[in-house]
Structure formats: structure tokens, C-alpha cells
């Protein structure tokens, strides 16, 4: 859909004919071209992301079945906030936050081990990163088999003589959420590992050597050299992980638990979908959508501030 920039009214012919055209007309053409070239992305993003988020905010103050909307003010907000189910949903999101440090710390430690480029490190990197290419749907389908009553976990326990322990994790509220969190940590491992490996490759090797000459052990090197220099990368991994926990595991929950038992594994993103497309309460879906958006926006803005702070 490429179109040439429009010809200026006052320039008789386009640039091509007058390579030494006046600077002002060159600038005018540049501005027009700039505006034209901005349009595709602005139209696309405006129509399909920004306009709908405006609608979401508006509809969150209405009772909306998808066809007709009546203004109800903040009553949907107070209805949700007072509903035990919805409080459970918010609690689930908060509990999922607990998985974030693990989802970062674990790959950070492994990246540190791999960063010494021991023989075979490329193979390990490829294998460890593999889950990143696999959809949450597939991951969820397998994880459901892993945690199921007679699933892989149970077989593992039985084979080490712990058959009497019968976790049946997906049937109990707390353990079901834990199962989702563990699966999430597994799924994020590769992504965060790559971020940290990229970060560690920017660190000057001579720093390590100097530290070793000074008699620093591996742990000391990790704490005093690697971690401070990785700060930007840790923050980046943090925001990716947190936003994924809130907005990317819809399909994982859909396949693995369906949000249950009860609301035990329903998060804000899943709740919004359920309210809209299972119950037909699009108003509640919009309200949950606004809360999710605010949560993501707050995290992003705080993150940008932290980044700035680190650079100065």
C-alpha cells in the first residue's frame, strides 16, 4: 500500500526533478511524508486498541449486554469489589505475584552458570529456551496431565515410595493456583534466561578476572559484579514476567483449570472473558478490563521511572 508523498502545491514538480530544491520545500515535503508514513500505524492502533480501551472505560460505567448499554455509574465497580468471587480473583492475581521472583531468580542463577561458556552451553541454551516457542495451550494441556489426580506427578511420587501422598493438586483451591504458578514459572524460564544471558554477554570479562585475582569466590562475583551490572536486564525481565502473569496466561488457565475449582484459579484477564462471553455480562467484563489495564499501566509507568533512575 505504498503511496508517494503528495506533491506540494507550490513546488511545481517532486524532489526527483529538482535535487537542489529549496530547503524549505524539502522540509515541507519531509513533514508531509512524515505524516503520511505515520498514518498506517496510527490508524491501526487507534481503531483497534485505543478506541476500544476508551469504550472499555465508558462501558465499565454501564450495564451492557453487547447490544444496549445503560449508564449505571460506578455501581458495577462496587458490585464487583463487594463480591466474594471477585475478591478471590484479585487475591489470585496478588498471589501470582509471588511467582514472579522465582520466575526471575531461577533463570538468573542458571544464566550465571551458563555465562562461563562451559562446553555445550549453546545446546543448553537452545533446549532451555524451547518452551518459549510452545503455546500456553500446549503447555497447559501437558501441565494438566502432570498435576492430574492419576497424573505424572502422582506416578513420580509413587515411584519414590511416596504413593500415600496424594496431592491431586488441580482439585483443591490453593494447590490448583500453585500448579498454575509452577507451570507459569516453567513457561517463563527460557525467556528470562535469554534476557539474562544477553545481559551477561555485555559484561567485560576482565572484571571477573580482576575479581578472581582479588580472591573473590563465585558467589561474591555474582553479588558484587554480575547483579549490579545486570540491573537493567533484571528490571526488563521483571516487567515482562509480571505483565505475562497478568495478561498472557489466559490460554493456560483455559486449558489447565478453566478458572476452577470455583474461582480458585480465575485471574482478572480470565474473569473478564468469562463475564463477557460465558455470562453475557459485558459491563462486568469491561470493569474487569479497566482494572487490568490500570494494573498494567501502573506497572509500566513505575518501570519506566525506575529505568530512568538507573540511567542517571
Amino acid at each position, binding site marked *: 500500500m505504498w503511496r508517494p508523498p503528495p506533491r506540494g502545491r507550490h513546488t511545481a514538480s517532486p524532489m526527483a526533478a529538482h535535487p537542489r530544491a529549496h530547503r524549505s520545500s524539502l522540509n515541507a515535503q519531509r513533514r508531509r511524508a512524515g505524516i503520511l508514513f505515520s498514518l498506517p500505524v496510527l490508524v491501526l492502533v487507534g481503531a483497534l486498541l485505543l478506541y*476500544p480501551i476508551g469504550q472499555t472505560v465508558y462501558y465499565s460505567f454501564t450495564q451492557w449486554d453487547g447490544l444496549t448499554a445503560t449508564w449505571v455509574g460506578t455501581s458495577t465497580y462496587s458490585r464487583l469489589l463487594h463480591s466474594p468471587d471477585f475478591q478471590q480473583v484479585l487475591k489470585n492475581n496478588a498471589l501470582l505475584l509471588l511467582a514472579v521472583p522465582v520466575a526471575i531468580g531461577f533463570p538468573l542463577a542458571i544464566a550465571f552458570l551458563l555465562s562461563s561458556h562451559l562446553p555445550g552451553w549453546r545446546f543448553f541454551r537452545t533446549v532451555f529456551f524451547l518452551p518459549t516457542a510452545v503455546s500456553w495451550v500446549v503447555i497447559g494441556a501437558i501441565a494438566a496431565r502432570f498435576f492430574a489426580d492419576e497424573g505424572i506427578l502422582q506416578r513420580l511420587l509413587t515411584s519414590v515410595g511416596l504413593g500415600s501422598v496424594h496431592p491431586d493438586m488441580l482439585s483443591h483451591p490453593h494447590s490448583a493456583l500453585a500448579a498454575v504458578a509452577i507451570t507459569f514459572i516453567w513457561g517463563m524460564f527460557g525467556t528470562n534466561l535469554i534476557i539474562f544471558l544477553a545481559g551477561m554477554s555485555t559484561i567485560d570479562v576482565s572484571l571477573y578476572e580482576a575479581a578472581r585475582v582479588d580472591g573473590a569466590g563465585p558467589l561474591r562475583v555474582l553479588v558484587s559484579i554480575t547483579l549490579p551490572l545486570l540491573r537493567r536486564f533484571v528490571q526488563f525481565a521483571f516487567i515482562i514476567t509480571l505483565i505475562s502473569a497478568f495478561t498472557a496466561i489466559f490460554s493456560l488457565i483455559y486449558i489447565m483449570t478453566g478458572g476452577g475449582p470455583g474461582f480458585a484459579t480465575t485471574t482478572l484477564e480470565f474473569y473478564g472473558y468469562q463475564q463477557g462471553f460465558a455470562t453475557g455480562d459485558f459491563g462486568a467484563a469491561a470493569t474487569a478490563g479497566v482494572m487490568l489495564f490500570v494494573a498494567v499501566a501502573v506497572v509500566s509507568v513505575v518501570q519506566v521511572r525506575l529505568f530512568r533512575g538507573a540511567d542517571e
Partner: protein
Amino acid sequence: MTTRRLSRPLLYVVLAGITVVMLYPFYYMITTSLHSSDQYQLGSGSYSLASWRNLFDVLPVWRQLLNSTIVSLGGIAIILLVSTTGGYAFAILRYRAATVAFLVVVGAMMVPLQSIIAPEFINIVNYWRINHLDSAIIVYAALGAPFSTFLMTTYLRRIPMDVMEAAMIDGLGWGRAYLRVILPLARPAMATIAVLQFIQIWDDLLVGLLFLQDPNVRPITVGLATIPGQHGLDVPLLMAGSLVSALPAVLVYLVFQRYLITGLTMGMGK
């Protein structure tokens, strides 16, 4: 180097352990799919291709693989178009309001699909249509556009102004400079965006679930997600489906690993 003091064998034991944890699901998918439903339930050791035959009966597998391919490539094409034109405008042309426009696009990165899914769906139903691949394509294009444009803008900022001035002196004009100068220079970033978005779109569920409800227009990931609801819990069947749906994205990852890795970190920019 830094790990000299840790014993090497211990290190390899740890890495091998993680390798098992990361690869076991693939092993499980393959071996389980090679049982029939009965064999699986009885825990019998014999193998059969029954679940694979069954998969092709319950899902239009080829059709859905084709749908996934069309949707992914269509989405990528639009994303590449808008991210290169946008990146060109924001990084090179830099007209007066370019910074504001760039911030608007980047700000849209904060809009999660799940927040807007209800109005988005109603809008598409009212002003466009569902159950056609193009509805999913434009939604995916919009979702991928902000990050891709951000990445492309960051990338194109590195192009020295001399290059553009030379193009102007050659009498190219801003429009043709996009085609002859910017697009060739942007190729590495375009490759990264294409790989990132392919995996993103191929692996997605929600958009396909809502906008493509007819089995014949469903992408494979959505088809897979609908198996349990329609055919009960047939684990070998589900694993065969999982394998088929995961394989293309995994292959793309293995072949284009390099681009994916730069893409993840390129987002951090400078």
C-alpha cells in the same frame, strides 16, 4: 572462569536435570500420542497410530494448519508494513508531532487484549465480520504493531543522517527513499519482528477462539483447545494434537533462533 571453583560434574548434573525438566513434556507428548485411548487407559506398553488417525478425523488438521499459516503471515505482513512506515516517520522523518505520535503508539503497548476484548469483539461484529480469517489478521496486526513499531523505530534511529542526505542528493524523494534505502537497511529488524510475531500469533488462543468460531476457519491452536470440550478427555488424542500444533512454531524457533534472541533484547534499546 567464574565457575572454576564449582565442580564441573556437579554443574553438569544440574544442567542435565533442567534439560530433563524442559524436554520431558516433548517426550511425553510423543510417547503418549503413540498409544490408542484404550492402551493409554490400561497403561499397556504397546503402541498404535490410532490416536493419530483419530486426530485427523476429529479436526480438519491440514485446513487448520493452513489457517494458522495464513493468519500468521497476514498479520506479519501488515505489522511489517506499519512498523517500517511508522519507524521511518518517527526515526528518520521526525516531523514536528512525530514524538507525540510515537508516544501514542508506544503507549498502546500497555493495552492488554483482555481489557478491550468485549468492545473489540462487538466492533468487529458490527463493522466488519467474524468467522473470516481477515478479522483475526487485523486484530493480531493491531496487537503486534506497537511493540514492532517501537523496535523498528529504535533500530532505524541508528541509520546515519548522511545516508538519507545522499539519497536526497540522488533525487530519490522521501517516498522512494523508503523503498530503496530504508527497507533494505531494515531487513534484520524485519526478520526479528517476523519471527517474534509468528510465534506470538501461531501460539495465541483468545483471538481465534472468539473471532474464528467455525471449525473450518479455526487456527490449529484453537482447534486443539476445543478437543477436550468436544471429545471428552482422550489424552493420547490431545497429545497428538498438541504435537501438531506446537511443531511449526518450534521449527521456526530452531531455525531462526538468532532473530528471536536479538528481538527479545533489542526491545530494551538504548
